[in-house]
């Protein structure tokens, strides 16, 4: 159990490519942190630097109160779960779990006890004498988890551990990882490109883009108050609608269409407006509204996603299946549900109280590089 402090860490490859740019994250003891971002955003590189599989070019990583920049991976007191499990194919499940302990000179009785405990927790007791090739993907994933658990490390590192599983198994394993982590209370750093996985697992999310942190925050805060258009379009499914518009007085202009935003303009001129699909509703008669030209509909059962265009720009609305849909729809949105972003930098412009559940939304710390 330990806190992890990542301070101004950079990764610069030979040739000058900077994969991670001065990233700082303070992870509390027992916290579950998820690094999320598109491929190539540097999330895996960051994790591998913490693991000791990549050298740290600049900055420091502390686990507990120990700077581990130059400590061997085996001595960092961490355990890692790999995407393709990385089990030792020539060892039985028991030996896979016991290997790390044996190398540390743990007494045999202690090893037996710990392996038995981990096997019981993960329900892999009946497979202990098998080799990994005789196991299914889900079972292998459990063994990989077990290998991390038996070590009782200060921190778990997960490198997209669920990507190789099928969709159904992924959901159930996700739940198990979450519960297990809560039960063990071990500080965890988890890398994924799947925003849903990130939302459901994380105590706090770290959204990375191009080697830099876009936003750190609790999943709902990130969802409701995205710090930039990148975060807005990355977190949440369907992605947040982003429309270019112009603000004049207390009105928003999207080409020929106009939306009343109630309050006076704090930032006139061109602007990017973010609208969550589920915040759109059918306009009442006489109400000012956007006219959506419907192109196609995705039925999801509980709701339906209506895709179309507003003044030639793509827009998706999530509506109840009971609502009949014609060729066009009049859509309205509560002004406080709108998100405003700088048209050039994509940064969030103001903090309208956007939380749908009425919770207070904190100003989010946006880590500047």
């Amino acid at each position, binding site marked *: 159990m330990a806190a992890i402090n990542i301070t101004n860490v950079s990764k610069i490859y030979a040739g000058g490519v900077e994969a991670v740019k001065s990233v700082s994250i303070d992870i509390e003891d027992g916290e579950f942190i998820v690094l999320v971002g598109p491929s190539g955003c540097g999330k895996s590189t960051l994790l591998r630097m913490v*693991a*000791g*599989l990549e050298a740290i070019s600049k900055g420091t990583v502390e686990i507990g109160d120990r700077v581990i920049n130059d400590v*061997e*991976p*085996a*001595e*960092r007191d*961490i*355990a*890692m779960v*790999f*995407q*393709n*499990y*990385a*089990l*030792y*194919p*020539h060892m039985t499940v028991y030996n896979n779990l016991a*290997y*790390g302990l044996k*190398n540390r000179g743990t007494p045999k009785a202690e090893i037996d006890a710990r392996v038995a405990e981990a096997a019981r927790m993960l329900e892999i007791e009946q497979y202990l004498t098998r*080799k990994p*090739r005789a196991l299914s993907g889900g079972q292998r994933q459990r063994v990989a988890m077990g*290998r991390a658990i038996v070590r009782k490390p200060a921190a778990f590192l997960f490198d997209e551990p669920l990507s190789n599983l099928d969709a159904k198994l992924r959901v159930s394993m996700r739940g198990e990882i979450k519960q297990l982590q809560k039960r063990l209370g071990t500080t965890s750093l988890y890398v994924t490109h799947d925003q849903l996985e990130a939302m459901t697992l994380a105590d706090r999310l770290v959204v990375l883009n191009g080697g830099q942190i876009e936003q750190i925050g609790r999943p709902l805060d990130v969802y409701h108050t995205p710090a930039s258009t990148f975060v807005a379009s990355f977190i949440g499914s369907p992605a947040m609608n982003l429309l270019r518009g112009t603000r004049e007085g207390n009105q928003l202009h999207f080409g020929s269409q106009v939306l009343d935003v109630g309050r006076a303009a704090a930032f006139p001129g061109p602007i990017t407006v973010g609208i969550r699909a589920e915040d759109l509703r059918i306009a009442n008669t006489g109400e000012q509204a956007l006219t959506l030209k419907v192109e196609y509909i995705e039925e999801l059962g509980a709701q339906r996603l209506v895709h179309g265009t507003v003044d030639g720009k793509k827009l998706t609305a999530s509506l109840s299946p009971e609502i009949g849909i014609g060729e066009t729809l009049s859509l309205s949105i509560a002004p406080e549900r709108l998100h405003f972003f700088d048209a050039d930098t994509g940064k969030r412009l103001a903090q309208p109280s956007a939380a749908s559940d009425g919770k207070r939304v904190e100003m989010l710390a946006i880590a500047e590089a």
Partner: protein
Amino acid sequence: MLGLNKSASKPPEETDAKRVQFNSRLLPYLFLAPQMAIIFIFFYWPSVQAIHSSFYLEDPFGFGSTFVGLANYTDVLKSGEYLGIARFTAVFTALVTFFSLAIGLLLAVKADGVIRGNATYKTLLIWVYAIAPPVAGLMGMMMFDQHIGPLVKVAAFFGWDMKVGLNYNDTAFAMIVVSVWKQIPYNFIFFLSGLQGIPVSVREAALMDCRSGFRRFWTVILPLLAPTAFFLLIINTTYALFDTFGVIDVMVKDKAANNPITLVYKVYMDGFRGNDLGGSSAQSVILMIIVFVLTIFQFRFIERRVHYN
């Protein structure tokens, strides 16, 4: 087109999804025929011939032959000279196999660890393999030459008066060194590709589980290399027994009779120099039996410990 028909009707659970069915019963035999012909002409037929002539005493000038039963075998097995050569062959094979495997593995592990300029290293190490065995023998001879050989000079520096071609042990030493040197690149290639076949993530997992690089090698890397190593063990044993012929021939030809030779060279000497076809055939049958037993032993007792992925 060729009368092949993939069995698509089979359910996927039936393991062998790749099995091909033939429309004509003759076709598979036709496909097998070239391979079978080669095996028959170059292996079975000579083997049968060898077994046959090992029971006869052949006239050196080709005027008929006399049936002598097992006399050729008993003569060979009673001969002190033959047993001495057999002993040397065993030592020679064991040493050549061991050192060519060990050095090949060591170089492969080191080359695999090199990050910068590793292509150059690999090319330099593989190069030697392109040299034909007699040329390797010749080069070896020059290295061990009494007058110009650099290795002889090095040995002299340490007070070792090396006389390759005259002194039995010195010749044996030179033969082993040249044979090992010749085989290292072959082993290197296979070990290197074997190492590169080990998943990176497994190595990384080991890196987090085990601090000592030496221990990691013995507990994770080597077991995963075992299929490659086992294959090379068989290939190298065969190499040391048979394919070193060229090296030995160059090193001992025209030299005094007191030089070490291996069994296969003895077969050649007796058969083609001594014109004793019967005795030579008996020897090659014995050699065949030795290789047969050795291969069975290797498959029965060593392969069992090999993990195939």
